[in-house]
């Protein structure tokens, strides 16, 4: 500690070490938060259901997405990314997932919402398997922290069925 530079260096290294420990503790403190997010999705309308020229089935639908994700937010949450995926089973694949809609929730104030949404991304099957197809709509959420590890969870809402005929 005999010179200006030596003291500055000691202060800086010790300060940064403590900052790292603080960040670890902040991350650990997240474990005391028990999240109980609510989500509900309804299909309001099938807007369009057709076979594309290349033989793939395509659906356009309008959903009502309502959720209360406030409990996901702690003081260490930067943002929450959510997306709605359609999941269904075909003869070829046990699980098909098609992302229909997504959003970024920047803060707790925006975590309660109920909005009608047409699918942002095409609901297109690789083939012609969608007529009369049962499917789930799954709300996935990825919680992005300011420091620490990111985690994801989902809620499956099942019991939807596509019409038997194109329209």
């Amino acid at each position, binding site marked *: 500690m005999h010179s200006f530079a030596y*003291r500055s260096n000691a202060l800086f290294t010790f300060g940064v070490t403590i900052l790292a420990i603080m960040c670890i503790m902040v991350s650990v403190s997240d474990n005391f938060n028990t999240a109980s997010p609510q989500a509900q999705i309804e299909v309001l309308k099938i807007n369009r259901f057709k076979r594309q020229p290349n033989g793939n089935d395509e659906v356009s639908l309008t959903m009502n997405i309502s959720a209360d994700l406030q409990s996901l937010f702690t003081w260490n949450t930067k943002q929450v990314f959510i997306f709605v995926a359609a999941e269904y089973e075909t003869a070829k694949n046990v699980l098909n997932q098609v992302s229909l809609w997504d959003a970024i929730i920047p803060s707790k104030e925006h975590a309660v919402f109920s909005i009608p949404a047409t699918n942002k991304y095409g609901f297109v099957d690789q083939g012609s398997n969608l007529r009369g197809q049962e499917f789930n709509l799954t709300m996935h959420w990825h919680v992005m922290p300011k420091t620490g590890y990111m985690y994801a969870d989902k809620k499956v809402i099942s019991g939807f069925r596509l019409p038997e005929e194109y329209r």
Partner: protein
Amino acid sequence: MDWQGQKLSEMLMQIMLLVSAVVAFVAGYVMSSFKNMLIIYAASVGITLLTTVPDWPFFNRNPLQWLDPKEAEIHGVRVQKPKPQPQNTSKKPSKASKK
């Protein structure tokens, strides 16, 4: 800065940083604000820097006492002869250089 001052400076630095980290963490948790935690910690690092890094007078309360060159010779220490200066025989000026 003298020896006692260096010890004091290091101790002050560590205590101030640890205390401010605890304060910042608790305040941030209570206010539920990560940003406030960082602001409080950054501010107290700044205060610590101003307190412990510059060579303040209170770090120099125990100046190092150098032996008088004549006395040192008695204790068997070889002393380099100072350059012949214009007639200053009675007593060598005591060198108490410090940083």
